């Protein structure tokens, strides 16, 4: 498929498609981070993760509308308020869902998949009834429009860059939370040995609820960021959920670094191949390669070496 291109042309194609793939990378990272902590730490498959993300997006949409009508002077900074609101709304709903549903299913991981799929159907239809089937978008503040010109060929839109910065800072924040805080230490203790963690006085049920809420909250922030680069509709979340699960599994379920690396690899592979093949064939090839590698390395790229 590389016939008829000189090597310098190929280089610039790769560079161009690489930059284009960065926005897909941000979406993958933002969605996958929330999933990773829920799936990797608790073994729960949250198929409604995409819908939590959309909830964050709708929260942002409402906030932006509120600022436009009542506080037009502060519109430039509405996004930061929206992000916090999205986190709180989604985390609250996440805690509720955990209490009503997930906590009864911890020893049946496959059943969490079915139950959360049902939840996702209900949430999708609720969005459709409340907000309508049409996609909604938000108006960007002035400072987010425009683009940096890196070279003649390569342009970086500011909103895309902004979303990427959010994605990376959430990743860093999550790393610090998981590996440098008391809460993170408790979470990892529960994951590694639940009865022993309980024996030393860790409230494992509380940790589970907090972790689930945190994962859902991150999904909400992801949704808020998502509105900056595209419009959202009731079923946009489902469009990404399978890809994102592959990202998580491919990276190794309990590894944050692995998640980021695999999100980068998959988004770049897809974006580069899109130039040479059709979009759908690029996606098929990427998924097939990922499935193939997963068959060779079922635990993912960067699995923790634990004796089971």
């Amino acid at each position, binding site marked *: 498929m590389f016939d008829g291109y000189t090597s310098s042309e190929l280089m610039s194609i790769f560079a161009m498609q690489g930059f284009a793939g960065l926005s897909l990378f941000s979406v993958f990272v933002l969605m996958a981070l929330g999933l990773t902590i829920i799936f990797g730490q608790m073994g729960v498959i949250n198929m409604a993760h995409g819908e939590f993300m959309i909830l964050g997006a709708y929260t942002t949409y409402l906030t932006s509308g509120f600022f436009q009508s009542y506080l037009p002077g502060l519109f430039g900074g509405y996004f930061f308020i929206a992000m916090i609101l999205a986190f709180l709304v989604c985390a609250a709903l996440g805690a509720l869902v955990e209490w009503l549903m997930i906590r009864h299913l911890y020893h049946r991981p496959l059943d969490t998949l079915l139950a959360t799929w049902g939840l996702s*159907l209900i949430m999708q239809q609720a969005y459709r009834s409340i907000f309508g089937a049409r996609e909604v978008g938000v108006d960007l503040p002035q400072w987010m429009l425009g683009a940096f010109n890196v070279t003649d060929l390569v342009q970086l839109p500011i909103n895309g860059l902004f979303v990427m910065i959010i994605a990376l800072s959430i990743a860093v924040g999550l790393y610090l939370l998981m590996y440098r805080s008391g809460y993170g230490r408790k979470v990892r203790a529960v994951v590694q040995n639940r009865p022993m963690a309980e024996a030393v006085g860790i409230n494992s049920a509380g940790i589970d609820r907090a972790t689930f809420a945190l994962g859902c909250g991150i999904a909400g922030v992801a949704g808020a960021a998502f509105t900056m680069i595209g419009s959202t509709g009731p079923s946009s979340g489902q469009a990404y959920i399978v890809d994102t699960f592959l990202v998580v599994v491919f990276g190794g379920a309990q590894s944050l670094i692995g998640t980021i690396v695999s999100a980068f690899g998959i988004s770049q592979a897809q974006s580069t191949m899109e130039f040479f093949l059709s979009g759908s064939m690029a996606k098929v090839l990427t998924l097939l390669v990922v499935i193939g590698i997963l068959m060779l390395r079922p635990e993912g790229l960067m699995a923790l070496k634990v004796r089971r």
Partner: protein
Amino acid sequence: MKTSSPLKWFASREGLYYLGLAALLVIILPLILDPFRLNMVGKYLTYAFVAIGLVMCWGKAGILSLGQGVFFGLGGYCMAMFLKLEASTPEATAIQSTPGIPDFMDWNQLTELPWFWEPFHSFSFTLLAVIGVPVLLAFVIGLAMFTRRVGGVYFAIITQAIAAVLTILIIGQQGFTGGVNGITDLQTLKGWDIRTDEARNILYFVCVGMLFLVLFVARFVQNSKLGRILVAMNAQETRVRFSGYDVAAFKIFVFCLAAAFAGVGGAMFTLIVGFMSPSFIGIVASIEMVIFCALGGRLSILGAVYGALLVNAAKSGFSESFPELWPFAMGALFIGVVLAFPNGMAGLYQTYVMPLEDKIFRRNKAKATAAPKPEATRPTADKTDDYDPIIDRYSPEKS
């Protein structure tokens, strides 16, 4: 579970269940439904094939495949390709720029038949492919996954991704597959018009016949030693492996069996509905197939049939009168079945109806000593009860 003669078996409790289902499908439904509705029931029954496969694969052996739509679709597409070629004679397609190829290929500027379409001129090859292609794919997937001990959640996600790959491929390769519209305008099967009411009636009964064939195969497997190994594997895989059984081989077998059932179901679907399209086989469709099985009861092959019938009937009913409500109902179904009654309708039946039956049966037995001993056809204990949650969560096969 050995029975000395078929007649005696039909008088046993399990035999009566099968007779009841047969009476419902062969006598009651055809009498009370008009041809259009009966055709719809036939369509629902084709999903029951998949659900029976899922009972064997997920309920018994604990392998949740979220990609059964793939096998359903492969079977369906194989049949559709044969029918399409039969409908695309040079005379019937004379207005095309290259007569003799299916119409959608002509629209997509294809001038000759792709190589993989060629064998589908032969009916016997098609019949073989309906089962062979899904089984072959299932075998390859199973071999790659189970020998590497990929299981549980990972297997579910990967099969789901495979379902995504297949639908994207079918939609993307419009010239070869008919794209998002699927393969439509199918007319005859070996010269026999499948669109008339009479043909649809006959196809319905053929479908019921095939369904019972599949039910008996599934029953044979679940009552054999192999079936008990599958159940044991689900509960304590490591112990079964240490007892010297090749766990991967059993898993591959049951996965292939489920794929074969799904392929037959898909082929019947194409015949009954008259076309095949990617919307019946994608991720959403595949996961709905799991709920047919879960609602009926994940441990009961007869329950799977009732589950497929009920969910689909409810879906048709709801979407006709309250299209808004159906997703809510479906979502509630998923959550309710999983949380409140994991063994589905069959489990409820067992808990509430069977004790009553026991009383009646016992009274009969007191009167006539020759009456057959009631047999429990399904494992009675909720299998999640004697699960060790710690082993379940931390053993590599289940994680």
